[in-house]
């Protein structure tokens, strides 16, 4: 028990912080209320510190996964905090300025920060998961607060609509993977991931076990916004306030990918054949469809947020290449380790996308509405040079432009795909990167080449300095993390090392055909 507790110290710290901010956020004195984001930040830093000291999780499939992953979660979490702080406070504090008394009952500012931290807690718990039940609860802890955050992020109708859609479809997704988990339990008689791996390794993967795995993966596709569970993404991203959209792009996606990595590890990657045939085929189709759909639909958007939502879908498709490639042989370098590539790319994507959303959050229309249309960012490099350049740098990085951070991330995905023999999928990835260049460059051209024109009168800087800072830090990371890419890459490689003791079902001979196969669906 105490070993398990040692693994979740960061989550415990975050939980304590959550409880504190729930109270301070509703405090009658304004100074205390305004200190709330600082408390969140302190909690995140403490969690990051605790994460670095986490011991190896003995007996799990990825013993060294926790420190690296939780540190990047906390760090991107800090960036997101800079972006989120103030989102719901603004209206409330404006009311207070107008002389209205602060009424904790009518305020939701405490909850907003608390839900953010709850979601991050859930994300970290997903990383620590060694059991299906734990994983399910952690995934739901990650997502449930976000439903509410989307709904309360603005006072507009579209946010409520987005929240409702997100909640119902999320429930559908959760039900799907819970169904899969149940089948896995039915097939193996255990909910422990290492136990499932052991069962698969010794007894082979039964049809029901395979079915459970496929359904679970399809369900988790909701979290990562992958085909066929991606439909909610553009509506929700557009409906939520930009800072919340940024969070949606990172937090549930990371949780989904970690869960997928842990689930896939139970069947393992065969040294030559890779994942078991059905799973490989499923992920292949999902990856190819996801990136193509995402990029194609992003092409025809005028709303920057919708474009970013589709780009988020496409990026999930890219990262699935790493999942299919697998961790390679033990001791392989970073560029042959697909799981390390995914972990590193999650960091890259979190930083880049936060940067772009930060730019969108840091400007607003004169009537107080969010900047969203591509016309709103036209000539940004001239009207707001700092924001314009953040947008240009982060977008170039998302496009995978060398030598920015996104290039290194994408390089890992490409190289692991090639070294695992998935040339076909890498070609699809390459074509999609080219398609993506179209709309990313369109974004850059709008910000850099076009002149502000009339839109200069429609867009103004929003009053949150912290958002601007978040953007500048993101762009700085995109450029500067290159210099420190080596330790990060090494960290990802260490985190993605499969436990040498892991029994590997995929190493066994192909399964005997099961007569009940056709009846399973």
């Amino acid at each position: 028990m105490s070993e398990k507790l040692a693994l979740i110290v960061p989550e415990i710290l975050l939980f304590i912080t959550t409880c504190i901010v729930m109270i301070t956020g509703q405090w009658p004195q304004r100074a205390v209320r305004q200190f709330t984001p600082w408390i969140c930040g302190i909690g995140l830093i403490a969690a990051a510190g605790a994460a670095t000291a986490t011991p190896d999780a003995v007996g799990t499939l990825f013993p060294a996964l926790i420190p690296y992953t939780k540190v990047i979660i906390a760090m991107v979490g800090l960036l997101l905090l800079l972006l989120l702080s103030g989102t719901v406070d603004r209206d409330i504090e404006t009311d207070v300025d107008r002389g209205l008394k602060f009424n904790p009952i009518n305020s939701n500012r405490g909850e907003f920060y608390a839900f953010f931290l709850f979601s991050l807690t859930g994300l970290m718990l997903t990383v620590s998961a060694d059991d299906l039940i734990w994983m399910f609860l952690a995934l739901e802890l990650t997502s449930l607060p976000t439903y509410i955050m989307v709904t309360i992020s603005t006072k507009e109708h579209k946010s409520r609509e987005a929240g409702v859609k997100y909640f119902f479809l999320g429930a559908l997704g959760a039900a799907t993977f819970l169904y899969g988990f149940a089948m896995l339990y039915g097939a193996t008689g255990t909910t422990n991931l290492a136990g499932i791996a052991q069962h698969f390794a010794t007894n082979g993967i039964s049809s029901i076990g395979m079915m459970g795995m496929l359904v679970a993966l399809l369900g988790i596709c909701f979290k990562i916004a992958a085909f066929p569970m991606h439909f909610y993404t553009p509506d929700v991203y557009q409906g939520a306030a930009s800072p919340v959209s940024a969070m949606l792009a990172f937090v549930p996606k990371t949780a989904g990918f970690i869960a997928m990595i842990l689930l896939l590890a139970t069947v393992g990657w065969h040294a030559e054949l890779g994942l078991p045939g059905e799973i490989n085929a499923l992920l292949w189709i999902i990856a190819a469809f996801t990136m193509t759909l995402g990029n194609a639909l992003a092409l025809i958007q005028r709303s920057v947020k919708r474009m970013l939502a589709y780009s988020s879908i496409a990026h999930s498709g890219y990262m699935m290449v790493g999942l299919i490639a697998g961790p390679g042989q033990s001791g392989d370098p970073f560029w042959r380790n697909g799981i390390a590539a995914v972990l590193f790319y999650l960091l890259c994507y979190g930083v880049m996308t936060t940067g772009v959303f930060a730019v969108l959050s840091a400007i607003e229309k004169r009537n107080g509405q969010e900047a969203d249309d591509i016309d709103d960012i036209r000539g940004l490099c001239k009207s707001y040079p700092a924001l314009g350049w953040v947008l240009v740098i982060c977008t170039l990085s998302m496009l995978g432009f060398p030598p920015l951070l996104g290039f290194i991330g994408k390089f890992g995905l490409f190289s692991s795909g090639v070294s695992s023999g998935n040339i076909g999928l890498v070609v699809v990835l390459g074509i999609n990167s080219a398609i993506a260049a179209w709309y990313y460059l369109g974004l850059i051209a709008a910000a850099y080449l076009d002149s502000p024109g009339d839109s200069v009168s429609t867009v103004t800087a929003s009053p949150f300095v912290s958002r601007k800072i978040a953007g500048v830090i993101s762009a700085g990371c995109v450029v500067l993390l290159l210099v420190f890419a080596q330790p990060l890459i090494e960290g990802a490689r260490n985190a993605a090392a499969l436990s040498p003791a892991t029994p590997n079902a995929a190493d066994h001979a192909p399964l005997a055909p099961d007569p009940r196969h056709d009846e399973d669906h």
Partner: protein
Amino acid sequence: MIQLTPQLTTLLSTLTNPMVALSDPAAADPHAAATTAHAVGEVGHGPAWVLLIPFLPLLGFVLNAIYAAIGNKSKLPAWTTVGLLAVAFATTLSMFLSYDGSPYTVHAFDWIQVHFGDKSMIADFSFYVDKLTILWMLFVTGLATLIALYASEYMSNDIGTGYCRFFSAFGLFVFSMSCLVMGDNLLMLYLGWEGVGLCSYLLIGYFYKKPSAVAAAKKAFIVNRIGDLGLALGIYLTFVHFGTLEFAELFSNEKLMGYVADASVGNFSAIPGQAQWIALLLMIGAFGKSAQFPLYVWLPDAMEGPTPVSALIHAATMVTAGVYLIARMYPVFLVSEFALPTVAWIGTITAVLAATIGMAQFDIKRIMAYSTVSQLGYMFAGLGLLTTTGAAFHVLTHAFFKALLFLACGAVMHGFAGQLDLRKLSGVAWMKGWGIVGVTMLIGCMNLAGLPYITSGFYSKDMIIAEAFVTPGYSIIGWLLIVTAILTAYYTFRVYFRVFVGPQHAEPGNEHHDHDDHAHGEEHNHDAGQHGDHHSSGFHPHAPGWAVNVVLAVLAFASIAAISLAYIDKAEHHGWVGSMVHDSTAYFHSPYVEQAHHAAEGTAHAVDGPVGFKAPKAVFGMDAHTAMILITGIGGIFGVLVAAFFHGPKGWQGLFIGGRTEAAKCRMDAVARRFGPIPKMAENKWYVDEIYHAILVAPLRVFSHVLHWLDKLLVDGLVNLFGFLPRLFAWVIRPSQSGVLQGYAVNMAGGVVILLVVVIVVVLRAGGAA
């Protein structure tokens, strides 16, 4: 950048040492010893302060760029540049004085180190210093300092951003030139080569609002590119064949030493063709940069740049880079059967051609430009005739007197609002405040004309021409060069007699000089306005200020003082330059010279020289040098007299034998009419530019139009098609994003089911097939 591993350092040192050891037997060979190139021994490490020479000008570049950024509007950029360059010159001087006779390298930082297999390509940012380097750097930094001082006044109309831009490029140029001359490997040389090309481009196009300047800059860049391609290929081939780019290693290379030994006995068939091609390729690069036929066409147009640039870059330093390249790589040229003869012939053709064009021009700066091309031709002829000493000596003297001539012409151009037409200027030397310009211009003209004994230009030119007569089979070159010398004397003094003496007359150019408030406004020559035939009575030429006069005087003095160089070490090395060249890779001990001397002295013991060499006969029964001093001396004086007769003014009781009383009219006009269309053709540069346009530019343009339409219709069409497909796909699937919650749920559930079915069917099929 790939870091050098310690193992590799040791590997390299073991590679270097045996090579040095192996080169010794070659040097000990009696035949090879007579003709071998100077073998580079163990190269030590030099003092780090040598790095100041390239990096001070670079600092100047950076500082001037900063001045431009902060909007400096004073002469600070000029003084910064002059100061830094003066220190660089002082450093070069101390490098010269402290040089103890053995070459050394100075390492700045690791630059390019690539290892593949057992080979490695090392090109560090380091500098190689031998006497050839020192010789070149002395006049590069010295002249750069002087010309920067001159430019501080000359460019003062542009104080502000333009001034900063000018001196910024100036500093970058000197840095690049230092890399070119001092680099310890061919890649550094290439870096400097491209760097000076860039600076040349930037400075020719300095007046970027003037279309002709922009066109000239482009022309210079593009024509140079042709040469640079040759240089690049030559460098590749050097690496492929010899496995190294570093001079120290290359010149102690066992293979190269063997080739040189073969070449010295005329056994070129023993040398692989690949090694012989290197020199031919490098030669093309040298032709481009040093404006040799057929790539000379850019240099006259380059006069669109400010005059200090013409003086420094396009007369004194950059254009001698080709001479430097050949001198530096001389052993490689020696082993190529056809390279040096080609160099000699091309040099001669260029010298004659440019001189004939120069005779018919009216723009004094262009005349100087053609004379530069022509004099560069002499240098190449010298290289081809195996007298690197003569070539290097001519580079040195030419650097001084041609810089002087350009700067004097520049002073005229500056003073007369851009007027450069010799028909519209006359008697400038007599105008108030123009005395120093007149005298120094005269000294420069005398040097260029090669008046015997009193000019350094005479000694250096003579050394090359004499070599032509002692080298068997090259006496035609000798005669052509003598004719060119006469033409040179004629066109040089044509300028002097037309512009600087005679009746005072000046029509201003079309540059608006409304800058009466500038530094020497009070020195304006108001006398000029009093002369009756003055067109614009409101125009006041302004005489040059102290900076211009000081620089002109120093250069004039240096042109004369350089005579002494011919007498230092004369017995042993044919002058000081010879002693400098002797200790460098350019050293080549020509058997012809020795034999000629012996033949003249009646000592016949040299007849049993290497196979294939025959002792040449003496010229007119005299030693070749003595004969040439007579012939070229008389030729030069003859040329001056012709110029005096046809262009000289009337006056001084017939001391000037000419009869010119007006600026635009002279005896030559009548003579020129007799020649029919020939003068017009020469004035139009023998239509070389038009010929190039017809046979190269026009067909290429047609071809590029074809490609353009191919690109537009076919390639763009395909690209747009492929760009359209994803959009089409997007429009097709867009309805799935209806925004309706139930629709999404159905899509999701349906997607899950369909995917499961597809996957299981796919895998069963695959399993069934297997």
